[in-house]
């Protein structure tokens, strides 16, 4: 199963802005949190869903589909908007985000028909689930790849490293972790709370092959993900350097926008920037 059609780089660039506008709208409309975390992974999800993942809304349960798990479930506005753009979700679904009697929560619930592989929102769960999917793929001799997007703050969770150690030991070369390394977690800068450095070496010491990239460079993301597994007998991790709140000048690298929802003035300003 392949993508229905390949999108050009220009189309993807335009999509990123459109998707940020829709995220902004969803979050503003529903007064939801996590706009900064949602913006930092837009390019990563666009590259995955429009260039890399072999998934199709016509066959959401295809056993050989690639798997994607948004382990940083709080960034689900991005996932929802990308899934809608990719045909898995409808406008009605998006309108049902974070409202009473709605259809989509502020953290994703598993629903294969909607392209959501696993329920997440509690950090430190996605990589273990991904390991299970990867093991199943090996036993079934399937060729699908399992991708798990983690946040940097999430790497404080011990369970992530339990899964990382296991995946390294079992040489799960059909498993790809992507760290959205936007350098800011809930209460401050990652380096000030519990530093992750040397992050690449840490993953390597757990048996993973690593690459560090600019997580907002669509071409670099695509080129990097096309080369997995980075090493024949290792799981791969992409450390994607990103900017929290990317795309809106006054949100970028600002802790405040982990929680804050834009008021009307801020919404208009942000919309203007994202429309230029």
């Amino acid at each position, binding site marked *: 199963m392949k993508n229905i059609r390949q999108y050009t780089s220009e189309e993807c660039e335009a999509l990123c802005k459109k998707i940020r506008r829709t995220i902004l709208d969803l979050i503003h409309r529903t007064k939801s949190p996590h706009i900064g975390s949602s913006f930092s992974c837009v390019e990563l999800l666009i590259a995955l869903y429009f260039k890399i993942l072999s998934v199709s809304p016509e066959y959401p349960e295809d*056993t050989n589909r690639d798997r994607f798990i948004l382990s940083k479930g709080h960034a689900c506005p991005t996932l929802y908007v990308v899934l809608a753009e990719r045909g898995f979700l409808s406008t009605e679904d998006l309108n049902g985000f974070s409202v009473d009697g709605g259809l989509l929560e502020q953290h994703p619930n*598993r629903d294969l028909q909607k392209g959501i*592989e*696993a*329920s*997440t*929102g*509690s950090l*430190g*769960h996605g*990589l*273990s*689930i*991904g*390991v*299970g*999917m*990867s*093991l*199943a*793929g*090996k*036993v*079934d001799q399937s060729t699908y790849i*399992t991708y798990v997007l983690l946040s940097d703050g999430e790497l404080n969770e*011990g*369970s992530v490293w*339990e*899964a990382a*150690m*296991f995946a390294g030991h079992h040489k799960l070369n059909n498993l790809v972790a992507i760290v959205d390394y936007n350098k800011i977690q809930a209460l401050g800068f990652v380096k000030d709370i519990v530093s992750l450095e040397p992050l690449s070496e840490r993953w390597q010491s757990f048996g993973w092959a690593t690459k560090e990239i600019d997580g907002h460079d669509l071409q670099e993301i695509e080129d990097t993900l096309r080369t997995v597994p980075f090493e024949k007998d290792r799981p791969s991790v992409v450390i994607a350097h990103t900017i929290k709140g990317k795309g809106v000048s006054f949100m970028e690298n600002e802790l405040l926008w982990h929680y804050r929802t834009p008021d009307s003035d801020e919404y208009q300003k942000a919309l203007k920037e994202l429309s230029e």
Partner: protein
Amino acid sequence: MRDTFFKAVGDIARLHDDIFILTGDLGFKLFDDFRSRNPERFFDIGVAESNMAGIAAGLALSEKNVYCYSIIPFLVMRAYEHIRVDIAYQNLNVKLVGVGGGFTYGREGFTHYGLEDLALMRTLPNITVVSPADIFEAKKLAVLSHKYKGPMYIRLGKTNGPKVHDKEPDFAIGKAMILQEGNTVALFAVGDMVYVAKQVADKLLKKESIQATVINMHTIKPLDFEVVSQVASTHKAIFTLEEHNINGGLGSAIAEVLAESRYDGLFKRFGIPNSLKGYIGSADYLRDKYGLTHEKIFKKIVKELGVR
């Protein structure tokens, strides 16, 4: 009990290639046969129970039928939030098999006791909670659990416990088993305490000429509401026996039904107090110290009944 259970799972696995067994680095020699026959479907996850729960979920999301094994506090309590999110709420086909109900690991100390598992597991959505009373039930449960779609917690007790049955019983998940019918007094028990309940009933008959009803509540969730209500309507004294914290387990589950059934008879729970008293010793020693032997329960029941 665990040997019987996993031997049966291994036998089923000869015919079904969807079965995976995961262990948190426990069960010495327990899985040797399964492992040698199905090396690609057995994983020692290492001492990492949270990871085990997540991996089980990932396998179940890939249409696998997964059994996870460890000692109860590590399986249930260490990984509880992972079980909640990954397995229970997602309603996945994972069987969590906990060994060491109550004081089974006696001298190893409280870190190894299984005292709160029934309470914790029965509050989670979707999970069926079962504790077989002997090896016949354990074997039957292994077969039924394979066919059962959805998450299940299986609590196993003593390794060489006495047999409640002399042959394979008619055992159905969710259906309470009335082992003997009496009148006036009813004893509800779970797991290893089912045998004790039978002993208590024998003694009540011999010493007090009281015919007690004994009900094996192997399934704590969903609780057989019908049988409990029916017993409540025909008995004047109800006792619950469990090798579990007095709060939240079988006794609490039965009490909930009784309270909503307007039962107005005598009711008492036998279990382990919420706060341990620091006794050190074997499982049998601890059961005696905490009043869970048939002699001590018999005496307390007689006192409650006021027959002497």
